[in-house]
């Protein structure tokens, strides 16, 4: 753990201007989709980024691959700063960081054959000769478990799971080191989800990949990830190893999130204690001044001086796990 992490995100902010705009005037409001996110990913690991809808997970993913330029903060890949890079400056990192998208029906160009989808990456980067490109594309298909003979077909001739495999093959074409997976299985059937998750596990070993795995399905995250970062309203509230998060959650939000996962055994299900949160997620247009979870936190009154509502708790590392909360650890 002494070497620098493969991906190190520090205090990342991404604000979107929204609302009415005059002909020349500025936007009235800022949507703070990502409001100070920090996490790190070690080489060869899979980091799960979980949280409910709208908490900014996908925005983080898009910021890491440069689709949304970050408002402020730092994203370091292998020690190199990515924030503020020009399009040209990004090019060398395109080969190292690739992305798998959520919707297999929207992520493939309907007018291209599988062959042109898979050869495009090497065309853009001028990597190999046309003939080699096609062979490489067939190898990619083989690697993701598709029949390489189907290379001349079009995306609409494949099922959702097969399309997602093509999407994965495209992401692998440049032989990246880091894959950003933006809910790669949430659009698929449960039976297909398992296949894709297993495939991703195999590919990770085979090609020595690291994953930033964004999901809202905790079971999937538990299956594939080595460590987990939990997001709430644009901030990471807790990051720890998978077992620590699932067996011993330390942040009130993580606790309530995990308590919402149903248990298959009806006896246990009835016996277990559930934390039911009151109220709704605050609007990212107007986040609370203190801890973003404070208005809904069942334990906020245990912290003296109403500190939770006034101060933003920092993400502090202790015992190898990070947490942003004023409550004592033993809680």
């Amino acid at each position, binding site marked *: 753990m002494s070497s620098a992490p493969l991906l190190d995100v520090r205090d990342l902010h991404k604000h979107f201007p929204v609302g009415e705009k005059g002909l020349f005037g500025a936007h009235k409001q800022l949507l703070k989709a990502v409001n100070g996110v920090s996490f790190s990913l070690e080489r060869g690991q899979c980091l799960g980024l979980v949280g409910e809808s709208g908490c900014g997970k996908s925005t983080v993913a898009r910021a890491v691959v440069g689709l949304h330029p970050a408002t402020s903060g730092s994203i370091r890949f292998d020690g190199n700063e990515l924030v503020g890079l020009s399009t040209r400056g990004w090019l060398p990192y*395109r080969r190292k960081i690739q992305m798998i998208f959520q919707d297999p029906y929207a992520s493939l*160009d309907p007018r291209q054959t599988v062959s042109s989808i898979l050869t495009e990456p090497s065309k853009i980067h001028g990597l190999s000769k046309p003939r080699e490109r096609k062979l490489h594309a067939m*190898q990619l298909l*083989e690697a993701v478990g598709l029949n390489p003979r189907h*290379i001349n077909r079009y995306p*609409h001739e494949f099922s959702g799971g097969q399309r997602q495999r093509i999407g994965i093959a495209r992401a692998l074409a440049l032989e990246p080191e880091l894959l950003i997976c933006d809910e790669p299985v949430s659009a698929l059937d449960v039976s297909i989800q398992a296949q894709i998750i297993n495939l991703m596990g195999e590919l990770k070993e085979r090609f020595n990949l690291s994953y930033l795995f964004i999901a809202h399905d905790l079971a999937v995250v538990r299956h594939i990830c080595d460590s987990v970062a939990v997001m709430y309203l644009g901030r990471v509230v807790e990051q720890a190893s998978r077992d620590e998060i699932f067996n011993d959650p330390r942040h009130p939000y993580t606790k309530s999130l995990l308590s919402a996962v149903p248990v298959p055994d009806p006896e246990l299900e009835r016996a277990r204690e559930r934390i039911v949160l009151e109220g709704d997620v605050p609007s990212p247009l107007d986040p609370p001044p203190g801890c973003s979870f404070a208005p809904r936190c069942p334990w906020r009154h245990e912290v003296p001086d109403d500190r939770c509502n006034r101060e933003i708790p920092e993400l502090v590392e202790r015992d190898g796990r990070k947490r942003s909360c004023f409550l004592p650890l033993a809680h």
Partner: protein
Amino acid sequence: MAGKNPKSWDLGGKNFEELASEAAKFKGESLWQDAWRRLKANRTAWWSLLFLGVFMTIAMIAPLMPIPSPVFLDLQLEPQPPIWPWTNFGTGGFEPQYWELSALDNFMVDTRVAIFGDWQTGPWLGTDGKGRDILSRIIWGSRTSILVSLAAAFCSLAIGVSYGAVAGYLGGRIDNLMMRVVDILYSIPFIFLVIFLITIVNEYRAELEDNYGIDRETVFYVVIGAVYWLTMARVVRGQVLSLRNQEFIEAARVLGASTARIVFVHLVPNVLSIVIVYLTLTIPAVMLFEAFLSFLGLGIEPPKVSWGILAVDGSEMVNPVKLYWWLVLFPAGAMGTTLLALNLLGDGLRDALDPKMRGRD
């Protein structure tokens, strides 16, 4: 390191060269092929397409056909009514009288003389007041309509599509600026502009033609070109706006594709189906615009023929004393049928290219 180790790509010693030749058997059906199949299944659209194909061919080989010259005058007292084709075949000698033709057209006329000699069709659709054959004039007039349509289609495709796609993809301030330019061009009353320009050209006719090679027709085509890409740019921009946040465009950006590549490799092919439908609906509008301008005397000049000029000639002959119906009915019929076929084809194409209809027949 991942890919730096070639071993990681050694996939069970399969021979991919062999697989590549096998893959040729598994040809996929593109969305275009699928749309074509469904267009053929649509009777109305298919017959419209065939009709337009025949119409285009006839227009293109007009100089080859054994029809009288469209400007050959036979000063009689009044227009001749149409005769039944079989009762009059090949009367009169052929006079190769035309306006200034292109080299290809002259060659076709020569070929025609070599094949048919003096033989030509009779006044199947009647003649006008100056003894000119209506059938021949309709066929030669259709060439103007086609030329105008081609000019508009070319401008729509070349300028409209790329302009709209770039504006839509770049968005923000550039989009705003580019679309305001379109708005400004839109706001110019083109009929007045055409009248104004044509008047100027008429005034300095000799000077402009000698020094700059600009004649009325050039102005006419330039104006058509300037108007007809505007709507296309708007249509394409709207489509691109909805496409540009699709994940496959984001995927291309993550791969490092340049803006030009995204616009012309990913966006344009995906808006082309709407473009084609829109084009088949623009062309009738352009044909009408041409006829309208020629009707006003601002478009094509005699002795050249266009459908607008035929309409003028016909309307001049409509009077309560004697109804020269063939002077109005046949040109109007030819134009109406063509416009109807174009509209039906556009409708059929819209159905065939609609991705939601895919798989249905």
